[in-house]
């Protein structure tokens, strides 16, 4: 077992995070098994409280949809959006940050101005603009969320590259005749990754929250069972049947918490200063 994995398993935050994440994953994986019906279809009389009907464990919302089934199917959507958006954000951010940090000079100046242009617009406003322009299909939303979140990983990677590029082992590789691509991807990137991996968990949590916020405003894809959609639907009955919004809210809370805790565990495991005696 690698020392990093061992350190991760020693961190209580990491273990709790993994446990919660497993819970969410099981819900997502078993959705078709326990709730084979379309989660968007009518399951019974609207607005039944949880426990009121033994067949509908968590009750129904104001459109008569089964909340439990909706939550399980929604877990898939949330995880998918979180994962893909994170890959887009971290991938793009890493690439741009690596090039800016490695070459410096005018390349860095140009790329950083682009990054700053993105950063000056509040993330959520930018997301609304993108959705307004390109529509609200699931794919568009996911990529849009990724696009608004790439600047922070980009700056992180750039800073790492700027400090690592003058390390002697990088100079040595350059002296051996290694090309720039080899230096960037094989010499520097593996050493720059640990903080990025830790940060990716934050990006993932933020991506899930962003989709929920969009859905709450009714701007997400209405044809998918996303947690935000249900919170948005429950808004109109918030004062009497508060559980319609609260249950998917708890699901979001648990998922975001899981990713944050995993991130903290990774930080403990990958941060060598904490690992030292």
């Amino acid at each position, binding site marked *: 077992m690698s020392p990093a994995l061992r350190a991760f398993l020693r961190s209580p935050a990491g273990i709790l995070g993994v446990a919660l994440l497993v819970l969410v994953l099981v819900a997502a994986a078993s959705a078709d098994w326990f709730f084979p019906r379309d989660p968007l279809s009518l399951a019974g009389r609207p607005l039944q409280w949880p426990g009121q009907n033994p067949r509908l464990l968590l009750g129904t919302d104001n459109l008569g949809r089964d909340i439990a089934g909706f939550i399980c199917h929604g877990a898939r959507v949330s995880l998918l959006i979180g994962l893909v958006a994170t890959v887009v954000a971290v991938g793009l951010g890493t690439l741009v940050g690596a090039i800016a940090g490695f070459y410096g000079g005018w390349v860095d100046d140009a790329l950083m101005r682009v990054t700053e242009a993105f950063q000056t617009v509040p993330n959520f406003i930018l997301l609304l603009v993108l959705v307004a322009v390109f529509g609200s299909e699931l794919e568009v939303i996911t990529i849009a969320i990724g696009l608004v979140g790439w600047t922070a990983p980009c700056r992180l990677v750039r800073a790492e590259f700027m400090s690592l590029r003058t390390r002697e*082992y990088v100079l*040595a590789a350059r*002296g*051996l*005749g*290694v090309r720039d691509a080899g230096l960037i991807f094989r010499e520097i990137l593996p050493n720059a990754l640990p903080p990025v991996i830790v940060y990716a968990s934050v990006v993932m949590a933020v991506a899930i929250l962003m989709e929920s916020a969009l859905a709450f405003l009714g701007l997400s894809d209405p044809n998918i069972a996303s947690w935000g959609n249900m919170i948005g639907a429950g808004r109109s009955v918030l004062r009497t049947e508060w559980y319609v919004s609260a249950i998917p809210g708890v699901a979001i809370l648990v998922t975001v918490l899981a990713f944050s805790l995993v991130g903290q565990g990774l930080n403990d495991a990958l941060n060598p200063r904490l690992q030292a*005696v």
Partner: protein
Amino acid sequence: MTVHHAGPGAPLLALRTLSVRLPKGADREFALRDVSLQVAAGEIVCVVGESGSGKSLTAMAILGLLPGRVTLAGGAIELEGEDLAALPPARLRGIRGARIGMVFQEPMTALNPLMPVGRQVEEMLEEHTDQPRPQRLARVLELLAEVGIPDPVAAARAFPHELSGGQRQRAMIAMALALEPRLLIADEPTTALDVTTQARILALVKDIQRRRGTGVLFITHDFGVVAEIADRVVVMQHGQVVETGPAQQVLHAPQHAYTQALIAAVPPLAPPTRPAAPPGPPVLAVQGLRKTYRSGGVLARKRVVEAVRGVDFTLHQGETLGIVGESGSGKSTVARMLVRLLAADAGSIHLQGEDLLALNNSDFRARTARIQMVFQDPFASLNPRRRVGEIIAQGLRVHGTPRAEAEARVAEMLALVGLDPGAIRRFPHEFSGGQRQRIGLARALAMQPSVLVADEPVSALDVSVQAQVLRLLAEAKQRMALSLVFITHDLRVAAQVCDRILVMQRGLVVEAGATATLFAAPRHPYTQALLASVPGRGWEPGAGATPPARAE
């Protein structure tokens, strides 16, 4: 155990069978084991040892500044008869600074960068005395003058980065002396300094000891420094005192095998007599090499540093050419330009008749095998995430050597540098500094270069390891018909290794010549100053010593 013969009366400082325990899981149970030593007033005691010997920890233990989880496990620390080990932390704080002054290795990090130097010295007085402000300020200037800072008023107002390294260390010493402590602890105070600055700081420490009768506990790894200032010497190894005695006795007739081995590993300052081999054909010809660093952009203030201002030299086949100089002389810039890690502004570098600077990047990349570099820092020069086998084979693979052939070469190189063949599957952190430096050397040699540029290859190593790596370099040079450019600040090493030497100062070569001639009759004042500053130059290591037994 040591005997009590520390002059009249009680010693100023006495450690009695001091033991310090390391946390569980460390490589040994005790960092210090039964360490006993004494410092009398007006005496300089040098604690000397290699890395991991526990010499710095001894200082930390005296000051009550042991890192967390490292604990005192027994023994006494008596300062003028009072046992510091038994005192509560609050009392110790009053003793640190007031009765024990401390000087650290790196004055840049030991001083607060955001506070003027004078204010930092004044803080010491403010903390420990009730002198009124005007009196404190006068005292600060007096102290700065006493440690030999030329313009105390200006220095007091300056921030640490505005002073030179030597000035900063003087300011640190002024701080340590502010409260007139009877005991001064100096932990490698000159290691980060240039050799001429080091000589002046050593003279200052000696002067303070003589004028004030301060007892000095001086921690160092350098036997040259010991020869320069020590009255008595304590030699440490693996957390234990292995030998202690008057400086003359330890330096000239060491008793313990470890001390003998350490002293035998110190390179003598006199160059060995070499057979005057006829110079081979020139391999590397450098002409008019220049480099100017410019920083700042459209909005920032422009700064221009002329690092190298026109350097010419020729390296002959089979020769070792030394480039010596202090920090800022431009010697490392020259090294990096030779392998094109830095772009030269002007000049030419002809390697076997071909101008490297005229090549474009991909043509140069194809020729990197012919000129290779060895770096200074054995911990930074190997990628921590790659296995040793990959590191050594890297250059070969880049140049298209088939895998099987590359692997065979890696095995050959490991054997050449004296490492176990199993090393290929291990990661750099599993090796010691000396072993890592051998891996770095194997990486360069695997390319079968004709010229090897070694930038301070042994400066970061302990003296005994240093000797091994130098021997290895000499062997490799013989076996592989290498020509060597050897950059160093250490004149002892240069004397042993180099056939010819260039002395650089502020970007210019001020003197060049055969090593023996240059050491015997330096012509340029700067060369003379460098040679005069080598610590312990009057001491001939090994002279009068019994033949060294093998260490370990």
